């Protein structure tokens, strides 16, 4: 076996001599250990590799180990696209001599006149293991060389913030995978999940725990946590068929591979979901997390009644688009609105959902007028800036130009006959041109003092009228009193002038005489001022006036004449006045 290896090495070595040494950019010299922890019954392989040929290789002393084999040299050199790559290595196989921690010290080499040193490394030697690596079964090798890893993009996301889980199967270059099938697909409890299909398996090169591996992405999931707190992601288990090289070799020196089935699972992962901050949380917040744009648009802003228009409430951006309710459109109750039509155009990628969701309302106005669609708010939490943002849509006014008008929906009218009182063709009226102003602060007639006065005062007239009537009846029934009253009245009528002149002799008797004649004129309808006293007494007697009254009347007339030429006292004047009234009333009764 070693002989064969030697031949291979030698031939490569000779070939390397043919090639001219080329100058590499940097010189490396390093030590590689096959493992850093081994059992007492295991072996360790140490390689010192350099990328340029050197002299004076000086290995370390390998304290605690026994050199089983080595140093053996290997050289490889290749030309790829005109670039030469070269590597030379010295290999040792060591067996530990005791348990404990050991250090493999530096090795030195001179390359191009300079001395290079490798880095020392620590090695832990434990008690003897059951299965030394050189006796490992195919299963054990597969165990060591096959790893399923769940990579979580963020372990402390906010609620409803997208996280991705990528399942990678790491395969060491020494084994090969021929087939796999998932045993158990994890359920993501308390998460909204979306699987991103892996269409083709591409092997890529990567490192796993510092060693070169090939890996393949098997499954990608976008998760939106729906609950705060510690949430567990169930592991994914796979059944993998692997080909493991054995220590056996076939006739041509190639390794014989053994096939084995292996169950691998990604470990449980715990995600610590942070609740959304309550501080400054808007009232209308409905769980949108991400970065969005918000708009309300209408297909037209002026139309005729019974035509329809579309009002669209739309949210675009990145975030949990499928996981929140769109804000509802507030429409005037007088508009006919149908159930909104929900449309979504959302793509889910590794970074989460993006696209747009929209609600499209069909609105049919029935009456002429203006209908404002008030601005509605939409709030979301941006996990990047860790703040809430509120966007307000613009207010839109829909003008309905033609159609019936819904006049007089006054509160006095009940809801049922609301539709019946539509006055067709009534316009929105112009302002009134007559100011007709009155001072603010009106006083009411009802319950005012004036009201009570006007209401109750007329009632007083009833007793007054009754009293008046009674009085009149009483007066009518009193005969003597009436006569006296009449005489007085007559005297007042005819002798008022004479009474005024009482005391003034001349004018009193002139007035008295005139009054007596006036009386006769009124009573007999005869002008008597030119008549003689005899004629007057004759006339009166004809009217059946008694003698005494006639002589009294004539005596008065005589007195009036006599008074013009003789002195008369005030007392006599008074007597004549009283006599005149007495005579007049006496005659009046008889005529």
């Amino acid at each position: 076996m070693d002989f064969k290896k030697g031949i291979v090495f030698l031939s490569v070595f000779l070939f390397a001599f043919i090639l001219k040494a080329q100058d590499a950019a940097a010189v490396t010299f390093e030590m590689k250990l096959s493992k850093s922890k081994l059992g007492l019954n295991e072996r360790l392989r140490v390689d010192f590799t350099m990328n340029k040929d050197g002299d004076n290789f000086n290995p370390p002393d390998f304290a605690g180990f026994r050199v089983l084999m080595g140093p053996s040299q290997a050289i490889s050199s290749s030309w790829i696209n005109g670039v030469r790559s070269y590597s030379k290595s010295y290999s040792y196989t060591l067996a530990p001599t005791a348990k404990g921690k050991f250090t493999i010290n530096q090795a030195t080499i001179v390359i191009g006149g300079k001395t290079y040193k490798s880095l020392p490394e620590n090695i832990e030697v434990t008690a003897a293991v059951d299965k030394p690596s050189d006796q490992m079964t195919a299963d054990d090798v597969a165990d060591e060389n096959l790893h399923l890893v769940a990579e979580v993009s963020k372990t402390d996301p906010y609620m409803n913030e997208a996280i991705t889980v990528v399942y990678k199967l790491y395969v060491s270059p020494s084994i090969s995978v021929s087939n796999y099938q998932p045993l158990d697909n994890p359920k993501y409890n308390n998460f909204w999940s979306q699987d991103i299909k892996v269409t083709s398996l591409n092997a890529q090169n990567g490192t796993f725990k510092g060693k070169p591996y090939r890996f393949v992405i098997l499954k990608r999931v976008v998760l939106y946590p729906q609950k705060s707190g510690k949430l567990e992601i169930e592991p994914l288990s796979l059944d993998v068929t692997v080909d493991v090289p054995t220590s056996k070799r076939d006739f041509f020196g190639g390794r014989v591979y053994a096939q084995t089935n292996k169950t691998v699972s990604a470990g449980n992962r715990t995600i610590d979901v942070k609740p959304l901050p309550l501080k400054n949380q808007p009232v209308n917040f409905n769980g949108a997390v991400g970065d969005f744009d918000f708009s309300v648009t209408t297909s037209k802003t002026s139309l005729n009644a019974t035509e329809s228009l579309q009002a669209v409430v739309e949210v675009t951006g990145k975030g949990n688009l499928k996981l929140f309710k769109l804000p509802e459109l507030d429409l005037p109750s007088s508009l006919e609105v149908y159930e909104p039509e929900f449309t979504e155009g959302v793509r889910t990628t590794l970074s989460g959902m993006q696209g747009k969701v929209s609600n499209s309302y069909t609105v049919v106005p029935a009456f002429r007028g203006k209908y404002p669609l008030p601005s509605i708010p939409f709030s979301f939490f941006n996990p990047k800036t860790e703040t809430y943002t509120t966007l307000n849509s613009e207010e839109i006014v829909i003008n309905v130009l033609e159609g019936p008008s819904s006049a007089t929906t006054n509160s006095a009218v009940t809801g049922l006959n609301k539709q019946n009182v539509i006055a067709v063709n009534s316009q929105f009226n112009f302002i009134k041109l007559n100011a007709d102003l009155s001072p603010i602060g009106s006083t009411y007639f009802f319950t005012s003092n004036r009201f009570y006065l006007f209401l109750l005062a007329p009632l007083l007239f009833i007793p007054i009228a009754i009293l008046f009537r009674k009085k009149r009846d009483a007066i009518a029934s009193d005969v003597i009193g009436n006569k006296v009253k009449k005489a007085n009245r007559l005297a007042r009528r005819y002798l008022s002038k004479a009474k005024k002149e009482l005391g003034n002799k001349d004018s009193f008797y002139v007035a008295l005489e005139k009054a007596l004649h006036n009386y006769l004129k009124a009573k007999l309808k005869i002008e008597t001022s030119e008549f003689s006293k005899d004629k007057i007494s004759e006339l009166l007697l004809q009217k059946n006036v008694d003698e005494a009254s006639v002589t009294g009347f004539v005596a008065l007339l005589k007195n009036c004449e006599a008074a013009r030429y003789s002195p008369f006292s005030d007392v006599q004047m008074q007597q004549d006045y009283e006599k005149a009234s007495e005579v007049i009333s006496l005659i009046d009764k008889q005529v």
Partner: protein
Amino acid sequence: MVKNSIVIFLLFLGLICNAQSSALFDQATAAYNDGAYEKAIDFYKTIMDSGEHSAALYYNLGNSYYKLNDIPNSIYFYEKALLLAPNDSEILNNLGYAQQMTLDAIETLPETGLSRLYKKTTATLSFDQWAYLGVGFMFLFVILYILFYYFQYSSRKRWAFIASLVSLTIAVITLLFAYIQYSDYKANRPAIIFADEIGIQAEPNTSSTEVFVLHAGTKVQVLEELNDWQKIRLADGKTGWVSSIHLKLLKDF
């Protein structure tokens, strides 16, 4: 002398004020016609500040706010105009337009036939008009009664008596109507919601549960008050409490 001149001066001032107000009103009309609704509103408000009002003034303010799409204000002033001129068809028409813009749809409670009839009857005249009518019939009653007392023939006496009793009955009924109208008017304390959207609480505090939500422009009846909270009732009979900053009473004159 000094007193007299002061009185004359005040009279003149009143005249000047009146002239100023009508000039402002005309200016406002011109501004409205030009589409300068905000300017028109300023003019109208100046007239109101000077202590004068009218149904026309409130109606024009309502129109101006309607043109500016200010729903609560336009409904508020239309309703105010209706308080002064309850059956004006123009105001009712434009109020209908403004009410189309409100968000709340409130079904009014159906009234029984009897109460509707009685409401309809009492509402044909204002309580002041009823009162004047009652006073008139009282006068008629007194005159007829006195005539009855004075008439000599029994047939006339009978007619006068019957007529007087009829007018007395009418007077009592009209006064009853006036009283009903008056108490209705006193109990009626309408208000307009001004907040864009406001939750109505079950109790007069912020910690109580929200019963329902109202939007700007809705007319409510104020029933009671506690601190800064007012108990309101909707046309459909729902009641709740709302902070008084969110509504404006119509009867502030």
